[in-house]
């Protein structure tokens, strides 16, 4: 069923239909970003004073974000609890967080004020984020959207802040990694078209962009699309040289760090809020559950990034590589986690994503054993032993 048909049908939940509206707004935002990029590419363009053409992308981003938040609001009403229980709900929350992060970073980073050409980087960032939202929604449409009751453990005050903080930080960290990607792609194609980069560094970048599983679903399209852009710039004779790329490296490193700095306190708060919650539910602030551990690993990757950058003085490509590694860790924690060996007994598995937790377990599982032990305890108590 095509998305427009979805929008018109009465037998589909309103939240699902409003997400389609958000996708349309994202599509318009993508067009606006492309127009704005062409507009800013004129030699006479002054990116520091945004015109209405330049404001188009963020305007549509804001409208799309509002639409997603209305969808989330309706979903809340439709399921009668904070809508972050199933994978489809969590991913919709994530796209909302992407929109909110982009708007926050648009103001916080103020890229267009940095000078000529920066407005294009800003448009490109919005373009990528909106594509991210649309593709995530397309994936959500393959997942089940049934209402699920909250199990007792999820009925906690901590549910909403824990999830919101983590998801907002994931979105911001994702955008920080996108900024780093813009740098690596620029460096690669500038090296290809204008030279000035060693073949080893080019090989590393290419391998990183093409070979990392799952990440290359994002990086290869970006690499190919930017090949076209650089081809056009080549034809116009405006491909940036190695010295421009070097200047850009410092600036993008700074920008990506600022984006990271917005997300990091939320990541920290989200992580430890999970511990406060577990403490209330099981008097066990850290159960070494593999989701908790994956989240801790993500946090530690960013801790390493901070130390390398602030104490070790690492800047540019090296620091941005750590940032990309952090985003990969976020992705692993968020989406791949259910396939990791120790995740099978995790309390954090989403059970409607086609990955069955105890799928084919040959005989009991640890949970079943615990249940069996508790059952025998119940029997003992019943028989007053």
């Amino acid at each position: 069923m095509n998305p427009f048909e979805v929008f018109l049908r009465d037998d589909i939940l309103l939240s699902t239909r409003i997400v389609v509206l958000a996708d349309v707004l994202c599509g318009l935002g993508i067009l606006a970003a492309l127009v704005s990029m062409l507009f800013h590419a004129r030699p006479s363009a002054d990116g520091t004073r945004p015109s209405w053409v330049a404001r188009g992308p963020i305007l549509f981003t804001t409208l799309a974000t509002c639409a997603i938040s209305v969808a989330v609001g309706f979903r809340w009403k439709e399921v009668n609890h904070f809508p972050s229980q199933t994978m489809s709900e969590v991913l919709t929350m994530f796209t909302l967080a992407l929109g909110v992060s982009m708007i926050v970073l648009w103001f916080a980073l103020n890229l267009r004020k940095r000078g000529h050409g920066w407005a294009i980087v800003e448009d490109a960032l919005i373009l990528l984020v909106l594509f991210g939202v649309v593709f995530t929604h397309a994936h959500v449409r393959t997942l089940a959207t049934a209402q699920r009751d909250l199990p007792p453990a999820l009925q906690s005050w901590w549910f909403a802040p824990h999830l919101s903080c983590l998801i907002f930080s994931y979105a911001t960290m994702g955008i920080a990694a996108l900024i780093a990607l813009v740098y690596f792609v620029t460096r690669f194609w500038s090296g290809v078209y204008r030279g000035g980069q060693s073949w080893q560094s080019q090989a590393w970048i290419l391998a990183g962009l093409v070979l990392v599983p799952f990440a290359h679903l994002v990086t290869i399209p970006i690499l190919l699309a930017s090949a076209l852009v650089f081809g056009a710039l080549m034809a116009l004779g405006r491909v940036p040289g190695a010295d421009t790329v070097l200047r850009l490296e410092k600036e993008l490193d700074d920008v990506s760090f600022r984006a990271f700095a917005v997300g990091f306190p939320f990541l920290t708060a989200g992580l430890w809020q999970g511990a406060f919650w577990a403490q209330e539910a099981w008097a066990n602030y850290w159960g070494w559950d593999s989701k908790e551990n994956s989240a801790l690993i993500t946090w530690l990757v960013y801790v390493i990034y901070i130390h390398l950058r602030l104490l070790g003085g690492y800047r540019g490509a090296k620091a941005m590589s750590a940032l990309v590694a952090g985003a990969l860790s976020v992705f692993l924690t968020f989406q791949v986690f259910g396939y990791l060996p120790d995740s099978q007994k995790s309390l954090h598995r989403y059970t409607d994503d086609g990955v069955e937790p105890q799928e084919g377990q040959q005989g009991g599982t640890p949970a079943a054993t615990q249940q069996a032990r508790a059952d025998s305890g119940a029997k003992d108590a019943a028989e007053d032993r």
Partner: protein
Amino acid sequence: MSEPRIVDESATTNGARPPKPFRWGFGSAALLVLGLVIAGQVALTVLGRIVDGEATGLQSAAFGGFALATAVFLVLQRAAVARFFRTMHVGVTLVVLSLAAVGVGVLVPQITGFEDPTERIPDIRDVPADVVETYVPAPRVKSDEDFRRRPDDHPALAKLTNEQVARLKKWKYEYSLFRWAEGFFVYHLLHLYGVGMPESALPPGVAEKLDRFQDRYGIEERENREKQMGAAFSGRQKSQEIGTLIRENEKAFRRAFQVCTALDLNRTYKSNWFATLLGLLFVGVAFNTFKGSPRQWFTLKKGGYVLVHLGVMTLLAGGLYSKLKTDRGIVHLMIGDPPRDVYDGYHDSTKPRRMPFALSLDEFARRDWKTLEVGFFDEDFKSNPPSYTLWPGRRIELDFVDAGAAGKRPRIRIDVREVHERAVVGAPRWWDAEKPDDPEGLGPLAILATLDRAAVQAQSQEGAQPDVHERSVFLTPDPRIPPYLDPAWKFRLAIRYDASPEELRRTTTPPDDGRVGWLSLRVAAAGDVEPMIVPVRVGETVDGPAGYRVKVVSAAGDLRFDPRTKTEVLDPRPLAEQFPSSPGVVVEITSDSGGMPERRVVSETFDAESQGLQKEYAFPDLALNLEWERWTSPGPPRFVLSYGKDRGPELVSENGAPVPVQVGRELPLPGETRVTLKELLRNVRFETPVEFDPEADFISGPAYDPHFYSTDPTGIVLDLTTDPGTEKESKRTLRMASTDAGRSNLWSSADRRFWMRYFENTTAMPFEWRSVLSVHEKGADGSWQTIDVGNEREREIRVNDYLVHRGYRFFQTNADARFPTYSGIGVVYDPGIPFVLYGMWLTIFGSVVAFVLRPIAEARARRGKVAA
């Protein structure tokens, strides 16, 4: 102009330059830290043995020497140690190695109960290799999960001692879990993006059914079912492929398991090497936090940094305190039992622990989600219809029709107006409709009064009124309504309305005589959409889904369980003589994919799946349910009370002529039970008044509410609108209660289009469990004295809300549907908790200061300067 050169006097006087301090890089730091971690593993293991009194003299002496040498080294080389820990490379290396260590625990499944520091994979080196090689690869069976010796154990275990059996069984259990988890991971790694994974083609005919399902419940419900089915159908095939991968690489998995066990990788977080690493991390953080002038610590520039590092130190220190002092377990309580001060350490009844006080259970309840099910009379989807959780304000729309350009239009709209925690169901009222075709009428109904003579006689001897045993029985010709079964099991009685002689003959002598019931077979991994439902007789074998074969070995009308042996007790009488009060069958299940056959008892009254016991079966993915056929199964003679629009009542027996009967008279039936025909209605109208307790509001949140513990049914008020938005729109308000008393849980539309059932959903996770506890301390006379720890509100525990007393935390952790007064209470004694929590708060606060407040303040200061 050249800068003045600083001359190092000491260097020049000796004539040699001082040695350049060693520069730590990532590689050298990692090597040294790993060396320290290995030393820590050895030293802490020896220390543990010394503390437990198990160390030899040599080990104690070696440890003493090591500790002394370490202390001397630290004192003499304190400057070098400080420089080491203050190097950025060392700090980053410590974080990287900690990250890797945490990652190990994600990639290596942790053993069951690893939270207990004493839990280990047993050593099986003394078990003869031939036994290991025979037993370990053998398919897992039920008896493997009970670590004691059992009569149905694998024959290879016969020559081992009981203690060896226990160790080998536990080893195999843990190894199987490890092998499966790693196999699952490797399989997905080899099939990135699902490439090469089995396709999830739905069985033929399902799509057409789903289309009809979509018309009834909407496209969203349909798509959800379809996605569920797709995932489930491919799930089983995927599991088989993972099984093959494991079998083909058995040796590699076994070797990996042995390596992980030897290095404590499958109990990473409780291992000594992990503790050493975190200890080093603590020292590293401490060295770096407290360097420089303390005055800087209170500046905005450094404040955030200091707070974060203080937080990390506090939480690591708290964690260590927890590690040394924590104990956890479960205390099993039942309402009415005396106070209990003993709990099972780490959920293990062989590890009893005593608290310095006792607990008792005042109240316990489980409240389930209030649920509505809607079905359509002209549809038979086999699977359960979708169920809808109810809350005030919820709207459910169903039965969609095309509405042209406007897309789809629902023909049924249900709005939940009120939800009540306590409902009172009054006595039902019935009457014959004025018109025989009144659509509000439910059709024919016979009302009988029965009297159990044997009970009356017994009662008369005690001087009671005999008529207290008279019971009303309602019978309708609807084949879904069960017939009347004589409690003395001398006859069975059904009614028929306007039935032909042929139909009457088929009813009294059914062609499928001897069928004991219907078995529903469903492979859990294949979704709950299409269970296979087959008629069963004793001795027959059914070819089930996914290569399972189920043979019905025996059947019983009154199946009982012996709680001690946990086996079924079969009635020795012939099946026909057993009243079906709790019917069940014993089946033998075999699978095409091999394994020992499983013997399973399937009871009509006990659903293993909803009780969470399905996982304990040898074939846990095959769910079986039984519906006993009370009319065709072997039993006493069948009688039919037949009447019609223009026909008087008569009683038809299996092989006799119809006997005319009269309203108000006794029916000529065999046995002691007296059955009087009270009323015969041709089109009955029926009403059950449902009232609500105004005090008991809808419980939607966590606040204490005494009505939570009520055993009354719950109730709802619904606004039902049919054909909304059209000229035919009609609206009515319905009151329902979650009990079958007076059919107050059921409603069907007058046009027999659809029905609704309201119930509390016990098959899923509940809304909540709550317990109210009392605390008791030993009095002077040694008896337990209840002490005041607050009112019920304060003594109530829920998941997410625990009770603390003298450092012990109690939280809701377990329940068992078979024992409604039982509550399993988690017990935790952990004095490290507050430190860790403060540490975490400090870390959050510090990161906000460093990454939010500081940049804002600095930006403001910059703007101020520019303006100036």
